């Protein structure tokens, strides 16, 4: 990775003063060991008119992987570092920022032992970074540097000229020009390079806040993107970011936690689809579900596909729900739910009401049998249509709870989401979204097959034309139905069309029961 700093001058104020400021002699090439490779400093040009210092950091890619200890827990903080093929040797990342801080430490502090007055002087600076990874693109680069008084030129680099259809990469060639204090420029780079990259090569500890505040002195507090900067610099550790912002006396911003778009982890996430003010749809949905469960007089409830456990938390607030089981196929989601619900710190009596475990509705599961109610909230649309019959059998046939509450998006309503491009589903992992008619058709067929009756309710504002944003079906098990249940036949799950409980039945055989089963002619008289 590579960076040049150029300044101009004349005989009275020679550009080569840069060498004093950087504390590096323009006539020599110097090398410095850093924790991840070797930093080289040299001057491609050094005249009174124009002086350029270059920092070239040679990263050892093999050491990067080997030291990272692989992926996952205890491994590299940045997944890219666990790959032999990664851009770190080329792109200006936190590695370069740290090297900058190490190699030019006195300049960054604004000290110049030989010529103290130099450090106080604004210089015409031109900083070139040929490859800057910029999550957020050239526009974000502009938003970050322009408010600091830089003239920004950010040119996106194409991914591969041989394949023009691939478009641009996330890298830009960056040129910053402006009259600045060198120390400010270096400290801004130190903070903003990792912010643009949105990654760090080391685990972020609480002292990172101090680093941010130290380097941000004089320019960060007034920066319009300070929230984004704090959030990304602190590797999205919210508590740290809040701390940093609080300490910047920006409590006002800290309150509005969580609006920054996070990377979608669609197993964990529940709420991204359509939250809009004032009452988020997710809240409406939970209210509707809890209402339906209360109306059904359910006490022992399954939340199938519980995600981060928002509904489980809601149910815990009402003691009429005596047993609440959250099931999800994603262990990460369950961990997040456990953390949010603070299961480990809950009182024993309270904790006894709730259980979370991994499960999958692609399989029948004995643990799910015998509950009053099951909730499938925003779950079915995450299952491939072709595999839905297996879920139907697992829930309605095998688990066979008294009540089943199903919610799913109403695709007709999508035209009302201004932010949603036409023809797009609300969530990248949605395998389908149903119209009201499609949902009713599906629910009716399922109810019929497994011995339930079904009612439909709108959730959210019921638009006269396109209906509500979320549609809900409440299934009730027929009191009279003897079929279905855990012993139900398997045909239904094997073929959605088949609907025959006949194979359960004994064919014409004596209706008698064994009269005296203990009389076993031979076994009994074995003695």
């Amino acid at each position, binding site marked *: 990775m590579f960076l040049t700093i150029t300044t101009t001058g004349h005989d009275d104020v020679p550009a080569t003063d840069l060498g004093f400021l950087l504390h590096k002699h323009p006539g020599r090439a110097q090398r410095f060991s850093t924790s991840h490779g070797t930093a080289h400093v040299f001057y491609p040009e050094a005249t009174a008119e124009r002086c350029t210092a270059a920092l070239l950091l040679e990263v050892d890619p093999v050491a990067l992987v080997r030291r990272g200890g692989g992926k996952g827990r205890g491994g590299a903080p940045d997944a890219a570092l666990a790959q032999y093929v990664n851009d770190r040797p080329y792109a200006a990342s936190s590695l370069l920022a740290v090297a900058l801080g190490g190699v030019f430490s006195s300049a960054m502090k604004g000290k110049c032992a030989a010529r103290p007055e130099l450090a106080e002087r604004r210089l015409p600076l031109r900083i070139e970074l040929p490859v800057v990874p910029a999550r957020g693109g050239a526009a974000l680069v502009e938003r970050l540097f322009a408010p600091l008084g830089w003239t920004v030129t950010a040119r996106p680099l194409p991914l591969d000229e041989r394949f023009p259809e691939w478009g641009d990469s996330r890298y830009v060639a960056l040129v910053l020009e402006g009259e600045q204090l060198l120390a400010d420029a270096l400290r801004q780079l130190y903070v903003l390079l990792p912010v643009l990259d949105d990654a760090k090569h080391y685990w972020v500890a609480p002292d990172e806040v101090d680093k941010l505040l130290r380097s941000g002195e004089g320019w960060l507090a007034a920066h319009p993107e300070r929230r984004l900067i704090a959030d990304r610099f602190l590797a999205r550790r919210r508590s740290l970011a809040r701390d940093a912002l609080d300490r910047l006396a920006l409590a006002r911003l800290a309150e509005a936690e969580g609006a920054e778009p996070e990377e979608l982890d669609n197993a964990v996430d529940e709420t991204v689809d359509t939250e809009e003010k004032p009452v988020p749809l997710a809240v409406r949905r939970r209210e509707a579900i809890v209402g339906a469960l209360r109306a059904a007089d359910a006490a022992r409830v399954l939340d199938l596909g519980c995600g981060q456990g928002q509904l489980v938390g809601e149910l815990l607030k009402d003691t009429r729900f005596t047993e609440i089981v959250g099931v999800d196929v994603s*262990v990460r989601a369950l961990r997040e739910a456990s953390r949010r619900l603070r299961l480990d710190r809950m009182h024993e009596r309270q904790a006894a009401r709730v259980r979370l475990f991994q499960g999958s509705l692609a399989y029948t599961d004995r643990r799910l049998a015998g509950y009053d109610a099951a909730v499938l909230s925003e779950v079915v649309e995450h299952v491939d249509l072709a595999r839905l019959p297996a879920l139907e059998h697992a829930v309605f046939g095998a688990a066979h709870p008294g009540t089943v509450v199903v919610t799913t998006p109403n695709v007709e309503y999508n035209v009302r989401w201004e932010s949603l491009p036409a023809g797009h589903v609300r969530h990248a992992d949605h395998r389908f979204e149903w119209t009201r008619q499609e949902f009713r058709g599906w629910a009716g067929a399922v109810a019929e097959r497994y011995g339930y009756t079904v009612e439909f309710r709108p959730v959210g504002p019921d638009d006269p034309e396109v209906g509500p944003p979320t549609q809900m079906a409440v299934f009730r098990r027929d009191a009279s139905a003897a079929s279905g249940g855990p012993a139900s036949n398997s045909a239904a799950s094997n073929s959605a069309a088949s609907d025959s409980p006949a194979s359960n039945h004994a064919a014409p055989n004596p209706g008698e029961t064994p009269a005296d089963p203990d009389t076993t002619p031979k076994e009994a008289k074995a003695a």
Partner: protein
Amino acid sequence: MSTTTITPHGAPEAGVRTLAVPDLSLVVLVGATGSGKSTFAVRHFAPTETLSSDVCRGLVSDDTNDQAATADAFDVLHYIAGKRLAAGRLTVVDATNVQPEARKALIRLAREHDVLPVAIVLDVPEEVCAARNAARPDRAALPRRVIQRHQRELRRSLRHLEREGFRKVHVLRGAEEIEAAGIVRERRFNDLRHLTGPFDIVGDVHGCRAELESLLGRLGYAIERDDRGRPVDAVHPAGRTAVFVGDLVDRGPDSPGVLRLVMGMVEAGHALCVPGNHENKLGRHLAGRTVRHTHGLAETIEQLEAEDPEFRERAHAFIRSLVSHYVLDGGALVVCHAGLPEKYHGRTSGRVRSHALYGDTTGETDEFGLPVRYPWAEDYRGRAAVVYGHTPVPSATWLNNTICLDTGAVFGGKLTALRWPERELVDVPAERVWYEPARPLAQDAPGGTDGRPLDLADVTGRRVVETRHMGRLAVKEENAAAALEVMSRFAADPRHLLYLPPTMAPCATSREDGYLEHPAEAFAAYRADGVRQVVCQEKHMGSRAVVLVCRDAETARERFHTPEGVPGAIVTRTGRPFLDDPETARRLLTRVAESVEGAGLWQELGTDWLLLDAELMPWSLKAGGLLRHQYAAVGAASRGVFPAALAALESAAARGVDVEGLLGHQRDRAADATAFAEAYGRYCWPVGDPSRGWPGEPSPDELSRPAGTRRTDGLDGIRLAPFQILAAEGRSLARLPHDGQLALIDRMIEAEELAAALTNQPCGYRRPWTNRVLAPTRRLVVDTEDEASVAAGVRWWLDLTAAGGEGMVVKPLQAYLRTEGGGLVQPGVKCRGREYLRIVYGPEYTRPDNLARLRNRHLGHKRSLALREYALGLEALDRLADGEPLWRVHEAVFAVLALESEPVDPRL
């Protein structure tokens, strides 16, 4: 254990007092303190078979005589005894057991586990007990009255022991008799594991003597008749044994005739027979008990009236002698009348007998007033095949390793037999409807080929999968938890996810200058394993694909539940659908099916489907995202940085700054980065647009175009290179030698080429495509013992990779081999090309210091993993071939995915 012997049916040896004990039973020693129970137990039973109350007292209280710990001690004793009995192990309880309450708890325990309780009473004079206790320091203080109380309680108990529920009671009186006694372990009557057949298992006959004679004839039995021409025996020339699942009698025209034949066969040792509920009822009638003459019993009684009393007596004795079920063929086969859950196999209790004869019911009755049967077979997971009858079904089908052979012969259906171990079904149609059924035959056979739905317990938790080729293979809970998410959220429907390819180890790390992998290592390794002939196959530049191709979409839907209109399925190596667009999948699979047809392989292999292991190209088709986000991004970054850095260094050098070393180094790095970009670029090419062309005939406009440009089906650029045929209907082909494999595949490719060559000739009903979908796999056979041949192999690889090839895979030509030590030989190792490895190990991996570090790679784990996954893959294919239920195939497929998954801890 010196006196412990097994005799077939417990015939006591003369001379000594031998006590018969079933080899699976709960043996309860009864005797006062000091009566010598522990000594007796030590002499006749293994230490681990004996549970002593004193020891349990010690376990919970550190004092073997602490009476205050008695309740806890017995909890422990019962718990351990329960675990042993559940596992089918004989267990001896060494406690005084003189009180009825103590024995009652043990009898209950025995019944819970369906084993026989046996009492052995040691009745020793009070003085002897007292003397023995006095000799033991820890018991010396025991008051005499305790012994006296024990003696009193023992006396009171003696008469009641049988009534309490002990199936055998042995009373040994006096120290001498105890000293002289021996124990004989007798085999349970239902334990015929030592009989290995082969067997012909016959379904419910119900008096259909003529059909039975026809069936036995078709099975190859020669029927012997008495002087009145009545069949009295049937013998198979190859010594096969017939096994009847019961319900020989009632409803049909000649129950006595059936009995006569079957009794003759059983008595002559040519057949085994288990009782049905109809025999049980007839037996009670013959014993003079009052039973209702319903369900066809009246007809049997009437027919028996015509027989002489001796025949009726013989029939009665025969019925009394029948054992509820048999465990056969080393435990692989269980035969009973109405089906039996695994926990009852080989067990002996009233409950087991009742279940074997009548099956399990839910307690409900259906609209015909008949009991609703509990579908036990859906829950069945046992290793043993359970063959049964009782419930008439239109045709016999396997469900979870169980099969019902009652195909309603008496109701005008057919009489069915199962050949074991061949698992072939043989049937003869009923000559007529002999008896009107009370309700129509069930429309659906239970389960069908899929068996019951997949259950979470089939895949989660720590699992051990039994494999034919590598024994028991463990899957960790953490791996299963990770795989569960992938399988549930992203994988294809398990019903057409029949195989996942194993990971493949690279060849041993090369010391050759500039190379991390080199074929010399692969050849040497196989030579060391004693493998002479290996085949080098080019490694295609695509993504692994497992291709299920069916003759047509209809076959695919019926057999594998594939989506409408698609003749098969294509999945990635982690089980995901390969192509997002079903239309592209449909076209591609249709093209493959046409070539299979053209090659005549459907007929030749006797199948309507094939499972292919293949590579689907280009890599960019599936890995486009990875290529762009990781590889192309690295290329873009390198292209951005080096021109600027080199220019700066050159300026500095021009100024006389000493940067020569750094400049040279940066130039090398720039060259490496360029080579890297070239390497990944070879994997990317555009593919056709599936929205064009297909289906239907070309438009007149298209016809007017020059030949060779007509008829595009949107698959241009997509190439499928099959390199192995994994399976066809009823057979796993994974062990077919690779030359044979490739010959079959070559024929498919030739068929496609031939079809393309005919483009301009308007013959045939189907106009062929001009583009090719199938790609050949270049190969070279190398003799690892022949230096010249090895050198040719190395050269072949060098040429291949120099021309931009990815590398090659070296496999034993025989496909499936074992080393001298008996272990599996690696089914293949990869030797990747020097340039290709830049994509794996980074652009600069070839630099000497990088290579030195990369050579320090540990392949042991990878090799072991490759073998385990290989064995699991073979297992999935074998289970599929054997027609085993879906969950069994899925178990092995899931295990491969689990082993390939990064573990996650499911415990919160």
